[in-house]
């Protein structure tokens, strides 16, 4: 009986562990099975290097380049905003704020993380976009700039809480060593504490990147949805996720358009996969 229980316990935990791996392979398999058929009718060259995305028009074309640039533009924009603010917040909470201030700020930032993305989208569309039109004189508020701000605000909590964890694990002894050599707080933070927490901090950026590039609702609502290669931060763009989510609803099952959306998903998957891979390699090398 006891032996049986042991075996059962082992089996249950084993399947629990293997479940996510199965899910991962299931997702990859689905993506490729549904995505590959597109290439029977659309060349890989058109898909990767053409920027003409006209999936429903009389003369269909499936160039994903503009969508790729759309995703890249809003994600980089979001990081440009969220990295300094997120890291700044983390440094403030971990190194500067008193314990009482910390108690107020930390839960507030966690609250920010709990807001559903559609609410961020509404904020961007109903408030930020018209605000920017009125105050910085742009023609339209639905563009890379607005999307970057909203996405940026959305990933600040990810970056700040993960970076803060990393900063707070930097041993006190290192801080003391730096202060003991006559360093100011600023010098200690920038030259010792942040470099020592580098792995965790870069990890937080990668997580933020993944969250931003995968975000769908916000970009549908504020990125503008125009399938073009942007030439300015005030141009509207159409990220990959927008096309997948908006067009999937109306596309005919099994059509080229249907398969092309899976091909976009493959592209998205590969981008995040490569990012993670590079981070692993980079961090691994540095730690070694």
């Amino acid at each position: 009986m006891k032996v049986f229980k042991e075996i059962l316990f082992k089996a249950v935990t084993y399947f629990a562990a293997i479940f996510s791996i199965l899910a991962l392979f299931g997702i990859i398999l689905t993506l490729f099975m549904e995505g590959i058929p597109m290439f029977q009718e659309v060349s890989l060259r058109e898909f990767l290097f053409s920027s003409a995305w006209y999936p429903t028009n009389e003369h269909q074309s499936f160039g994903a380049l503009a969508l790729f640039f759309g995703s890249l533009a809003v994600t980089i924009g979001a990081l440009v905003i969220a990295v300094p603010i997120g890291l700044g917040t983390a440094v403030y909470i971990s190194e500067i704020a008193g314990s009482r201030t910390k108690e107020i700020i930390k839960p507030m930032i966690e609250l920010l993380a709990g807001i559903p993305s559609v609410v961020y989208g509404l904020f961007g569309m109903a408030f930020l976009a018209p605000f920017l039109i009125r105050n910085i004189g742009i023609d339209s508020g639905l563009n890379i700039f607005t999307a970057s701000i909203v996405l940026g605000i959305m990933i600040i909590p990810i970056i700040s809480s993960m970076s803060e964890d990393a900063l707070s694990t930097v041993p006190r002894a290192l801080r003391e060593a730096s202060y003991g050599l006559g360093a100011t707080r600023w010098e200690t933070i920038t030259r010792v504490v942040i470099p020592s927490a580098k792995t965790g901090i870069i990890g937080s950026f990668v997580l933020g990147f993944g969250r931003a590039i995968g975000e769908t609702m916000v970009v549908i609502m504020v990125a503008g949805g125009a399938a073009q290669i942007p030439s300015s931060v005030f141009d509207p763009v159409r990220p990959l996720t927008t096309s997948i989510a908006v067009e999937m609803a109306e596309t005919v099952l099994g059509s080229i358009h249907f398969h092309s959306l899976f091909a976009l998903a493959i592209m998205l998957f590969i981008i995040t996969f490569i990012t993670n891979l590079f981070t692993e390699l980079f961090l691994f090398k540095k730690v070694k």
Partner: protein
Amino acid sequence: MKLTKVILALVAILAIAMFVGCNNQNQEQTGSTLEGKITMSGSTTVLPIAQACAEEFMNQNPKVNISVRGGGSSIGIKDIMAGTVEIGNASRDAKGKEINKAKESGIDLYQNVVANDGIAIIVNPKNTITNLTLEQIQAIYTGKYTNWNELGGPDMNIVLISRDTSSGTYEVFYEIAMKKQNIVQNCIMVASNNAAVTSVKDTPGAISYAGLGYLSSSVKPVQVNGVDPTMANVLSGKYAVARKLNMYTNGAPQGITKTFIDFILSDEGQKIVEKQGFIKVK
């Protein structure tokens, strides 16, 4: 313990509610003796009307079975000619070619207009433009004009806003207003009629389009070829960016098919049509 009690109470309430609900339905359903089967296929634009009406019709006549498929307007007309469906849905009128071909195979393509579809071109209230020709609209959306002053309006960059390519409204605009010319790539795409209206309201240089049912005082509809986008003008056929939504049958509808189409054309059916965002026939 407490939680268990609360859950039990909720389950009980739900069960009672469902029982009462079922009872009501049964009472309604017992009235009809109509029996039969209708199949239809065709335009995905007509699909929501067909589907919503079919559901309500089957609700009232439980022994009737209606199956609805998409496929596009051409498929709808083809299926009628092949005799595989009772109703072929089309978001356009049958072409001369199709009518002739049908005649050759002894089929009389009979047009039943069940709804109208019209879209208004809208601009920001601050814009002084009041009328655009169809050619101007096409030139704007293909990127030939970039400033309103080229069209006699204020000196303001034109901000193009369109519905997303997957929407039915886009389809109408693309086919009727644009005559299937590609919209320029820098055009902003929004996901809903409301989003289009909101964006135009907030953006001084914007132009967009929306179903007639979605207009509000916060945006300004412009005349197209000098005609106001009103229900009356759509019905009379004067307004250009509009089309009829048809259910084609082989000859005048008969039997259960006639009952169903009559239902769609009744006040009740036309309310469903309006609910789906289209314009009544009468």
